[in-house]
């Protein structure tokens, strides 16, 4: 009898926690896509919360400090780590994506201050939605520069 009480209580708590995790996952899931994938599914993903990543194309960065409107293009980069490794690491992949004119590109509009790390060939991860014109409206903008601290080759060898 005493044991039963605890088992029932434990099961109830377990069920509550599982429900909590699943409902929170469902409500807050963000699809993580590459530029290619998003373009391929542009109709079914329109208006959905999506996370997309790409390489920042430096020439396209436009920033209006008065209205705090930031616009730039990102170029397709593969999300698969094996693919990235095969192409010589993240920095090389980002560089290749930006200089290749045939890569799929996506225009990003972001409202807010221009982040410090927004530079040519940075990796940008945006959360937002795709509108019917194929422009991506980002609510959140995350930037990663390839950590040159670990990967870089010294460019000035002495002696």
């Amino acid at each position, binding site marked *: 009898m*005493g044991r039963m009480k605890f088992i029932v209580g434990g099961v109830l708590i377990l069920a509550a926690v599982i429900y*909590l995790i699943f409902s929170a*996952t469902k*409500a807050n899931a963000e699809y993580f*896509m590459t530029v290619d994938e998003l373009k391929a599914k542009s109709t079914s993903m329109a208006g959905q919360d999506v996370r997309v990543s790409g390489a920042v194309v430096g020439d396209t960065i436009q920033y209006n400090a008065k209205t705090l409107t930031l616009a730039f293009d990102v170029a397709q980069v593969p*999300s698969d780590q094996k693919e990235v490794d095969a192409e010589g690491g993240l920095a090389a992949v980002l560089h290749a994506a930006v200089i290749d004119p045939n890569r799929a590109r996506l225009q990003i509009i972001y409202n807010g201050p221009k982040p410090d*790390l927004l530079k040519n060939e940075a990796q940008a991860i945006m959360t937002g939605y795709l509108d019917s014109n194929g422009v991506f409206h980002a609510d959140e903008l995350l930037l990663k520069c390839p950590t040159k601290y670990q990967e870089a080759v*010294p460019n000035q060898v002495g002696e």
Partner: protein
Amino acid sequence: MVADFGYGVITIAFLVALYSGGAAIYGERTKSADWIESARRAMLLLWPLISLCAASLIYLLITNHFEVSFVYEVTSREMPTYLKITAWWGGQAGSLVFWSWLMAAFASLVTLRKWDRDREFLPWVIVVTSITTAFFLSLVVFYENPFSFFWQGPNGKLITDAAGNAIKGMLAPMAGASIAIPQDGNGLNPLLRHPGMIIHPPMLYLGFVSFVIPFAFAIAALITGRTDDRWIRLTRRWTLFAWLFLSCGLVLGSRWAYDVLGWGGFWGWDPVEIAALMPWLTGTAFLHSVMIQEKRGMLKQWNMLLIILTYSLVIFGTFLTRTGVLSSVHAFAQSAIGPAFFVFIGVTFVVSVALLIYRWPDLRGETEMKSMLSREALFLLNNLLFISVLVVCFWGVVFPIISQLFTGQTVTVGPPFYQTAVAPLFAGLMLLMGVAPLSAWGHSSLKTLGRAIWKSAVAALVVTAILSFTYTNNLIALVGFFLVVLVLLVTLQEFWRATRARSKATQENFALSFWNLFGRDRRRYGGYVIHISMMLMAIGILGINLFQVQTQGTVSTNNSLSLSGYTVKYDSVAQFPGPDGQQVTRAVVSVYQGNHYLGDLYPRIDYYPTEQQNMTIPGNRSTLKDDLYTILVDWQPASTNGATFKIFVNPLVNWLWIGAILFLFGIIIAAWPDRDAERVPARVHHVNQTESKQSSAAD
């Protein structure tokens, strides 16, 4: 030369660690005191050896030996010497050496101080700590060598692999190659050059590594079959120290994020943050549940499982925070040492759980839990909630991988997921903090509990009602504030009751009684102080999460932005070189509340030319009511063209930091050594009544 020496020493240290572990196992198997003594001496040799290696590394760092790849990666000529020293743990390879160095130090401390007392456990403690140290040293020796050189061919060109990455190593990769010496290093990431960030990693590591000691004793208890609570009593203070440092590390990291990252928050549910939080969660659960084992002889199996989990999460946390997998969840296998970590975590976990299963019958509880409202039942519930938070965190970290595996589509969850899933669990924990101190061991009923709590509950309701009229009508906030007030009142009432009782019994005056209360039961009253500090922190967290407001805009000089009662007027902007080689752009803004002048703030942007990186440092005015957090976003050279600011008002967030300080203070109270801590019987092999009474005074 020095690099070769350092690498030689670390290789020897690796072999010594292997020998020490092996000799201790062999000595225990064959009951050979000589072998065990040899293992002990080998283990004691580890710390001096790793210290020598660390000294070589620090020497190379401060003397700009950029031909050594690690020195090149984390330092540059312009960096001040103290930053060059702390760069030791600023990169992956160095921090692995740092980890091993701490591990060897702690293991030596344990065996040097208490060899005779803990003779039965210590050979196995040596095995666990030596194997752990050997694992980290093997990573240094085989994968992440901080002493490896850059090489150039006879033509003077750097030797690289096909992808253009420099080939690094101790030996020339081809005939005729010579060591390449870059003129300057890359330098430490400017974001990491903050005092908080300099002591944050060592704090986390101290916490991580201290948790290995209770784990090692737990494994020793499982192997030797000495499965009573002796291993817990012996390592109680290690656990508290681990908890203290880990908590300190988490707090410093949050404060750093708030001060330096300039996004107005302190915790972003980043996988790296979660990696440090997860062992803290199991550690906290462990700290609570060991009390049940000590007092009631229950939950022995559970405690073992918790400390095993904590150990695995510590190793996992080191892996996540230090292997460059920070960028995205896709990069889990990016580093060469990733698979090594997974194999090590997997093997140690499986072996530990196998030992636990082997001893499972010996670890049965001595009494059975009867009442759902007894202190032990509520502690168990507290444990379940902590583990639930852990499951939420773990799920969030691995969900992208799982979704990738099963649907081929990566789905991630962000901060809102954690917030919605974790908030009810933390509310449950808060409620328990209010109720559990009032419940009795063994048996409590709704009636007795109700009688103890109703006054506090009514008072908390009244405060909440007042708040709902004067401060907010946000339901989540009101529930939160109700719980905060309830826990504060219950805890203060406990202090009041105990102090009054003591004062009456001893004829001491009230203040003295209050002081002596802590001496009588440090763990209990230190714990209460921690509960109070948690409530203060909860006020801050509720405030910034639920009531943060922000605005942004571009203004020219003498114009202003307004936000929730504050007016921020842009006065001027100036540029000047900073002490660290950076270019500082500093704005001066004056803050008014109505027409009342409050003072100036100096939000600034530091630009580091070598690294081509900006750092946005907010100007912050902090009061108990709220923080006015101003960020300089952008500016035009002619001040009439204006500057762009982002302004946050973060209500109540200061209580978070006040709570954090009180929290550390509470842990120190709980961990403060008892006067008679050393009075523990040595070499007792049979448990009996008298012994368990005596050893309750142990640390």
